[in-house]
């Protein structure tokens, strides 16, 4: 029953694979594993400040959605609500029809800081929360997928920032989540490591077929990874567009540049500021103005 629902959604979602050359050296996209996300009239306030009001959003199974916006616009809050780390003040969130549960295996969250336990070796960090006899074996496999099999016995303290995030990615993926939530996971990395990590995330997403929701303030990153880019602004989703680029995506293509520019212009558009009459200024200040 659940499966058929997913299948329908899978069929109805628009396919981003149009134009440009066919994907090469990319794993075939595995369908059917991802969870569907449905958000209806979701509101959240912190004290007096309204962060989200009546946000509605549907994400198809296996879709990669990027949330962009200025800092403090509420995109991270939206992600934390989906992760079940915060509770909304109104509306509802369904992950395959279930309410978000921070302890459920369905969704896994990757934080901006890797949040590895410094007192556990890399392998034990990846195996965190796993149970069963094959836990370490599975952790080893996940670590190999992110290319860090040889660092299993190291302490997190000796890894670089990029390596730590790769361990965090392995730790998230070892649970075979059907929804991966990424909260600016590459925000603190240098430009080259970011591009490398984006490639890794895209490859693993295609391989595993999970649904992905990425929060980022880097428009280029959103365009590189996502099927769909959403802009969170004024407590709502102000912009929702499919990325018209086939995978693998070439950063140098004109289509890429055009789309990135369009999103960027939209993000940068100033909200209408209330016009205030200029206050009467003292003479001393006026002289500076002339």
């Amino acid at each position, binding site marked *: 029953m659940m499966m058929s629902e997913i299948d329908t959604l899978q069929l109805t979602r628009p396919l981003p694979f149009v134009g440009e050359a066919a994907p090469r050296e990319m794993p075939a996209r595995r369908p059917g594993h991802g969870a569907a996300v449905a958000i209806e009239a979701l509101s959240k306030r912190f004290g007096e400040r309204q962060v989200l009001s009546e946000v509605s959003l549907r994400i198809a199974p296996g879709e990669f959605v990027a949330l962009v916006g200025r800092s403090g616009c509420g995109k991270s809050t939206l992600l934390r609500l989906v992760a079940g780390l915060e509770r909304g003040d109104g509306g509802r969130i369904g992950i395959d029809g279930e309410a978000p549960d921070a302890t459920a295996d369905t969704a896994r969250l990757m934080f901006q800081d890797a949040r590895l336990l410094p*007192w556990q070796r890399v392998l034990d960090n990846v195996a965190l929360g796993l149970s069963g006899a094959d836990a370490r074996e599975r952790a080893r496999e996940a670590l190999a997928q992110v290319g860090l099999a040889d660092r299993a016995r190291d*302490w997190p303290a000796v890894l670089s920032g990029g390596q730590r995030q790769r361990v965090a990615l392995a730790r998230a993926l070892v649970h075979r989540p059907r929804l991966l939530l990424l909260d600016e996971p590459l925000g603190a990395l240098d430009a080259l490591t970011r591009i490398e990590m984006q490639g890794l995330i895209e490859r693993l997403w295609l391989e595993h077929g999970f649904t992905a929701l990425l929060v980022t303030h880097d428009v280029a990153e959103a365009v590189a990874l996502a099927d769909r880019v959403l802009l969170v602004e004024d407590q709502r989703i102000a912009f929702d567009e499919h990325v018209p680029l086939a995978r693998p995506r070439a950063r140098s293509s004109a289509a890429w540049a055009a789309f990135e520019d369009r999103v960027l212009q939209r993000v940068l558009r100033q909200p209408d500021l209330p016009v205030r009459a200029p206050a009467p200024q003292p003479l001393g200040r006026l002289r500076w103005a002339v």
Partner: protein
Amino acid sequence: MTASLMQRLRPWWVPLSIVALWELSSRAGWLSTRVLPEPWAVLTACWRLTLSGELAEHVAVSSARALAGLAVGGGLGLLLGLLTGTWRAAETLLDSTLQMVRNIPALALVPLIILWFGIDETAKLFLVATGVFFPLYLNTFHGIRSVDAGLVEMARSYGLSGLALYRQVILPGALPSILVGLRFALGLMWVLLIVAETISARSGIGYLTMNAREFLQTDVVLLGIILYALLGKLADVIARALERAALRWHAGYQGATA
């Protein structure tokens, strides 16, 4: 080779020359043995008491007292620290009381302790236990409270809760602070034991020195003082080794594992 040996010996020059000067002035008769016995006399006293088995017995008795006090007081401090650190309700209920009691110096309790327990073993145990309780309590409480909230949130969202969360995240996070508490407690432990044994004892290093004082055996008195110093140092060395073993992951200790 010889240069590096000289380098290594350099910190010992000052203490060695002091001992040499001291020995010299005793032999020359400038220093009365009633004030300070010569180092050689201390060594022979140590040898004599070792042969008779007295030394081992008194050291064993004192160490047993110290460790018993540490186990009772430190154990209670650790437990209460974990309790108040973990549950807000326990903190509200207990913490301000404990903070008030903390400001009473343990030694101020001596007259009361003698009234309550007399001068036997219980009194010594009680004094040491009250002294070591607070460093462990305060540092455990602080350690639990300063565990990175981000790590706890991460662990919860990865399905950890209850005991597993405690064992894998909260306790290891609080451990550096708890071990600092332990080192403070070990220092205090010996101070309080010396006081307790000096007040009255029928065995132990304190008894040894007080007894020697009666007979003007300054060499034995000095031996007792040196024994306390060595035992205190030993406790510190053990605590450091414990820290190194438990905090291998910590950046400050990383050099030792590489």
